[in-house]
């Protein structure tokens, strides 16, 4: 008799456990407000990435097309994948001394792993991450970017004691023109 009882209690227990599961999916079926899907291309306007989002590397330019990069090459040294190449020139300044200025700051987006070592190690806070995330292109060569805008120059800071380095998210941002 015991085994017969177990037979029916098995059936009852099984059906009860199945019913519990059905209630979960049934609950969501009748509560469409809980839907979490985002309609991506339509919500492009409202879709705002977080300030710290590491989209792609940019060289921050201000409104007068000045940047802070002096072409020291520390970011290139620190990059683990060789995604940064710096081509620097030597140009005499007003005092007649040779000064190192940047010719091209080349950034291979296709090789970048977004480890942020370049941004962290930059001594003059020239680099930052933009929130751009739509990187898809049809030609791989387009992923190699020149970060300094044409005609841009290094901003000469008046000599003053070095300010403490601000955290990454407060680095001034500019729109990536390329």
């Amino acid at each position, binding site marked *: 008799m015991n085994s017969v009882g177990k037979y029916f209690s098995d*059936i009852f227990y099984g059906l009860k456990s*199945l019913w519990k*599961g*059905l209630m*979960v*999916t*049934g609950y*969501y*079926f009748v509560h*469409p407000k*809980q*839907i*979490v*899907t985002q*309609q991506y291309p339509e919500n492009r306007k409202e879709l705002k990435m977080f300030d710290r989002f590491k989209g792609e590397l940019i060289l921050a330019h201000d409104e007068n097309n000045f940047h802070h990069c002096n072409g020291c090459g520390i970011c290139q040294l620190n990059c683990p994948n060789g995604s940064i190449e710096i081509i620097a020139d030597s140009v005499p300044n007003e005092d007649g001394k040779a000064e190192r200025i940047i010719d091209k700051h080349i950034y291979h987006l296709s090789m970048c792993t977004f480890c942020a070592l370049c941004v962290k190690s930059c001594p003059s806070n020239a680099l930052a991450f933009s929130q751009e995330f739509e990187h898809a292109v049809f030609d791989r060569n387009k992923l190699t970017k020149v970060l300094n805008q044409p005609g841009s120059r290094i901003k000469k800071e008046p000599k003053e004691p070095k300010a403490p380095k601000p955290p990454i998210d407060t680095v001034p941002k500019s729109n990536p023109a390329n």
Partner: protein
Amino acid sequence: MPFNIYDFSGTTKAIDQFLYAKMPPTWAFITELAIVGLIILLFYAVIGLYLVYLERKVCAFMQNRVGPNRVGKWGLFQTIADLIKLLMKELITIRKADKLLFNIAPFIVIIASFMAIAAIPFAKGLHAVDFNIGVFYMMAVSSIGVIGILLAGWSSNSKYSLIGAMRSGAQVVSYELSVGLALLSVVIFSGSMQLSTIIESQANGWWIFKGHIPAIISFVIFLIASTAEINRGPFDLAEAESELTAGFHTEYSGIRFAFFFLGEYMNMFIVASLAATVFLGGWMPLHIGNLQGFNHVMDFIPPIFWYFGKTIFIMYLIMWFKWTFPRLRIDQLLTLEWKYLLPINLVNILIISFIVLMGWYIK
């Protein structure tokens, strides 16, 4: 031409008389066959496509998603776009596959479900044929489909496919029993195998209500067993995409795959409409005994809506099962059939026979 949404028999009879008056009897018969065939073909395509859409929407809502919503309003034309894509896809021929059987298999699956549709009464007077052994015919025809699945698995020359097909064979052979016995319970109640008679016998209440608890048990067993018979989750062992990638149709592509896909959904529709017809009264509106007022109110809703309402409800149940439960293992599947469903079913039939013999059910 008389047209009555509540009773199609006048319309069909009028067409019949019109054709026989205009043509010699042989030609009239052939024309009728062609018309019916065409209508069923169209119906098949539309229902098949929109069942896929329905399933995708239902599962999306259960999973906190919105489902297809890009093609047309609410994605209504999504499945049509899918069909066009499948039509244009290359039919890959498999090396060392048995070409003839490989090509025939999808057609067998689809023809089986095609034949079953013929006997379904959609509304009063709206059915292609009304066999006096309708239930038996449906059972017989719907089990042809498994031959297609077995052939597909065997002829693909793929090990995944073969395992899937063998699983399907074991599964269908076992579960046919339970499906048949569950249907038999209502046949005992109504005393007929003719679908139209079964429906007429439910004019004062559906069998699921009139037949007390045994009918409800039969209904539940029918739902479980028929879900297994049409290879749907949680009994989709023949496909089992996490184990066998796609089971018996792993090697199929393009429209041949679409046939399997469509066949699966049409089988679901057939099973659901059979359950609706036998247990829930088919197109018969909800009647309670001799409550004239209530019955009249219910009669205002046309039978075709009753029929589709019930069928969609049962299809929803089947979908609900699929998107909630994990898959069974093959030995558990057979245990469920031989240890639980079949004994319960046999005892149930014994009880029903006794009830009918003593006349204890609501007549």
